[in-house]
Each structure stands twice: as structure tokens, then as C-alpha cells.
């Protein structure tokens, strides 16, 4: 399918911003990239090869049905009262394989891969995820309406929070 080159560039820019704002800890600017009704979903693994498919009836690592979920996380981080979040892990996101999958009505779908290297009290580790994004154009501005993070790692060491994903 022929997807507008400008759109591809916009999508890549937005995903790069999203992950960079997390690493730079610009939490409010990061939240702003999401529409108020944005869904943020980290499925869990049903078995070795399959993630859950229905977040309403199956257990997830995270499932926020609107932007409030990530706002809660930022509230907790900024409180400086969360044992796991002080000192805060340092993170670097490396995103690649950004592909615009399609444009459907007003929604744009994209996929990407992400490696997040984090360094904390117990040392450094790298976790990998598959990203599924959906965007909507609000007054010529792309907003995230879905970020689905399929974290491929299990036997998780240390906390897993929005800045690791």
C-alpha cells in the first residue's frame, strides 16, 4: 500500500519523541502526546508463545483504558515516595523497525520494535518489546490513542514501569 511519505515521517518522529521524553523524564510532555481516551496496554503471556488477547477478561501487566493510567504512574514517580522509583532507573530506548501499517478512517496504525536498556541498583539490563501504536489526527496534530507494548521478557527483575516500556 502507498502511504504518504510525510505521514511516515510524522509517525516516526512521534514515536521517537515519545520514547525520548521518557528517557529524559519530561513526564508532562510525554503525557501530552496521548489523547485523553488513549489506551495503554501491556499484555501478559498466556503461555510461552501467546499473549492474552482480551484484556477485559484476562490478566495483563498493565491495562489503562484511558490516559489516567499513565497519569497515575507519573504522579507516583514524582511523589518520590515510591520505594521502587527512588532512585529512578536510568533508561535509554532504542526504537527501530518503525512501519506505518495502514490508515483507516481517521486512525493510523504503526508497529515498531524497542530495546530499553535500564541501569539501577542491581546493575544494567535490557528488555525488548514489540510496539503496536494507533494515532489520530486532532487539528493536524497526531495524538497517540493506543500504545500496546508486548514485552517479550518474563522472569522480570526489578520494577517494570512506564519508563521501561
Amino acid at each position: 500500500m502507498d502511504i504518504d511519505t510525510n505521514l511516515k515521517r510524522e509517525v516516526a518522529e512521534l514515536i521517537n519523541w515519545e520514547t525520548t521524553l521518557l528517557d529524559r523524564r519530561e513526564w508532562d510532555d510525554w503525557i501530552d502526546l496521548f489523547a485523553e481516551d488513549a489506551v495503554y496496554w501491556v499484555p501478559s503471556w498466556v503461555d510461552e508463545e501467546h499473549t492474552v488477547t482480551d484484556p477485559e477478561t484476562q490478566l495483563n501487566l498493565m491495562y489503562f483504558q484511558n490516559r489516567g493510567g499513565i497519569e497515575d504512574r507519573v504522579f507516583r514517580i514524582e511523589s518520590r515516595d515510591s520505594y521502587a522509583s527512588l532512585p529512578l532507573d536510568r533508561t535509554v530506548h532504542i526504537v527501530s523497525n518503525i512501519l506505518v501499517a495502514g490508515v483507516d478512517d481517521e486512525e493510523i496504525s504503526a508497529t515498531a520494535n524497542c530495546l530499553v536498556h535500564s541501569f539501577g541498583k542491581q546493575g544494567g539490563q535490557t528488555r525488548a518489546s514489540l510496539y503496536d501504536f494507533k494515532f489520530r489526527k486532532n487539528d493536524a496534530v497526531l495524538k497517540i490513542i493506543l500504545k500496546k507494548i508486548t514485552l517479550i521478557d518474563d522472569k522480570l527483575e526489578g520494577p517494570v514501569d512506564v519508563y521501561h516500556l
Partner: protein
Amino acid sequence: MDGSFQKSGLEALVDDRVDEGVFRVDRSIYTDQDIFEAEIERIFEKGWVYLCHESQVPEVNCYFATDIGRHPVVVVRQKDDSLSAFINVCSHRGALLTPKKQGKAATLTCRFHGWSYSCDGRCVRIKNEKEGFGEDGFDRSQYDLNPISKLASYRGFIFGSLVDDVEPIEEYLGAAATWIDLMVEQSPEGLEVVPGSSTYVIRGNWKMQLENSVDGYHVSTVHRVFASTVRNREERESLKGLKQTEGGRLVGIVPSGAYDLGNGHMSIWAQHTTPERRPVFKKKEWLEANLPAAHVEWILEKGRNLALFPNVMLMDNPSTQIRYVKPISADRAEVTVYCIAPVGEGAEARSARLRKFEDFYLTAGMATSDDMAALEDTMAGSFASQAQWSDFNRGLKTMTHGADEGAKAVGFDPVSSSESWENETLFFGFYRRWRDMMSASD
């Protein structure tokens, strides 16, 4: 550490002089690798351990792979609906038999040299048997899978033992059985483990996870931020009903209690200030019509955590959890969490139960993650042999021997009762059981 574990040292490690106001443990029980090796042999491989829930092996030929100490074990549903459990190892070269943790297979075929076993453990096929062992009636049954010595179900919770010399499961559970009853009797259709799980690794000792699950004292410190976060959420979004979080216990303003249930089992409870936010509240009418009043009160109005010696915790709060711990080394443990829920639960209640679980019980959530950070700091501190003692004497002076009013009303007989979940006298039972199993004669 000289490679040998001394039984005679145990008296020194668990300093049990309650009449003198002392109960303390030497923190080397968390850090010493020789002690860890002895725990595997003397506790995990010589007594009952939790294996799985019956809903994880729902149909004939379903299997669930787990461990007892260093032994891989598989639980298999038989043709007559009973359960069996075997050492999950091919008799030929010792390969793990099951390809996945959970599955369904009429025969388990080893993918190395092709030997096959029926679900009742019989060796039914050896590849090229005649060529290898001759025509004259070779007896394959010598290669049947080894069943584990004991397997028992208590109301759907499956336990196993590698040794015969264990008490019947009801006796082993003792007063803890009533705590399981309180979970199970909420649902006339039974309980089921919901699909999806998470495993996290503690860079710390397995016993710390058991302790943490029945430690009420940390809640108003470690989970203060959870309470403030959900309060902020509820104001921001004007949430209603089941979407709200029950938080009274988090800020330390409610009645609570703790029990040494005997045999190493422990439990705590805390009163709900808003029981209507609990998924089970939807069943209030049915509960009142079918269960004793004291049970209904404890089911609806009290959050409860149960720690079963040595390796599983059952939480029955607004959300409901099986927390399973697998010890890896003195400073490493793997914990797997599952949401357990009533069969036939309505969509709104089920969704609320899962969202509450995700809020609290995962290292991707806003509470367990903080607990684990605390445990890992405790592990780091436990290497300081010059500061070696952990005192568990908080609440000793107000401890009741036997049952308090609550225990009598519900109908269980604990070794001791405490008037606050912040007290630590319930840990006496855990460490006495630990000491007794570690010092048992061979």
C-alpha cells in the same frame, strides 16, 4: 561457609526464648548458601509443597509442570478425572518431558530419543525397542515414570510431597484450612485461575517473600504512595463503584489482626472501610443466604492474606491471588502470580478484579514493585554479620495464646492471635517450623 551445614547451629540461628521476651533470627538464614541447600533437602523435598490449582489441569490429559525442590514434577489429569503427579523426567537420559508449562497430551513423548509415556505414567513406547533390547519380552515397565509419594487436593488447591512420611493434608493445613474455605465457599461454582500470569525475580531470599505477604507493619509506609495515587485518581476521574479502590488498610486506620496458624502457616486480616468496592460484594445476598454469618462478615468486610509453609500465599482482598515462590539460591527466588476468581463471575466484577490485581500485585504494578525494592535492600543488609539479628518480638506482650474472638466466631484454632497486623508474633510459627524441619533427624 565450609560446604557443610550444621544442625547443631540451628538453636543459635532461631533464638526462641519467648518467656524472656526474645524471638529473633540470625540474618545469615537469608544469606548462607549452605543453609539454602539444606532448606531444599529438608523442607522442600521432605514435606508438603503447593503444586497448582485444579483449574490449571481442567480436562483429561491436561498437564501442569512445576517443581518440588530440585525435582521437576508434572501434574496430570487422568481418564477417571483424578490427578497424578510424576517426576517430569524421561527415564532414558533425564530430559524434561513436558514441552511447555501447561498443555494437554494423551501421551508425553520425549523429543530427544522419542520415548513415550501415557498420562498415567506408563512407558508405552521405546523407539526401535526390538533392535535395542532384543525380541524376548523386554519389560518396559521398569521405565515407567516415578510417581511422587503423595498428592492431595484441598478444595482444589493441589499439594505434593516427595516423601511418604507426611501428615494427611487436612492435618498439615490445620487452622489454615478455614482460611482456604473462606476463599472457596464464596463461589458455588468453584474457582478458576484466570489466563495470564507474571513471574518476577527477587534478588533476595525466598523466606522474605513469605514474610512480606503477612507483614502488615510495612503497609502504611511502603504503600502510602499507592493510597495517595489512587485517591488522586478517584478525585481526578470521579470514579464510582467497583472502579474505586478500598484503601482504609493502606493508611493504617482500621482494625486488623494476625495469626500463627501452626505448622508454619501464617495469616493477617484488615477491616475494609468500603466493602462495596469489592467484586465479591455483588454476591452479598447469596452469601448471606448460604453461609454462616461470621464467614459472610469475614468474606465481605475483611481483606485476608494467607501464607502456607513453605511456598505459596493466597490473598483474598478486593482482588484475589495465588502467589507461588520457587527458591533458586540464597539470594534469588522466582515468584509467579496468578489471579484466581469465582467461576461464572459477571463481566463487571471480573474486569474490576483484574484491574485491581494489576494495580497492586505485579512488579509492573504500584505496590509489589515497592515491596520487592524493600526486600532487596533487606537482602543487601543481611550480609552485615555485625548487625545480625532480626527481632520478631513486636506485639509479644499483647499476644493471645490460641483463638481470639474472631477466630472463635469463624471457627479456627490458631496457635496464637494478635490484635494488630503490625505485630510480628505470627512469625514464631514460621521459624519454629523451619527450625524443626531443618533439625529433623535423617
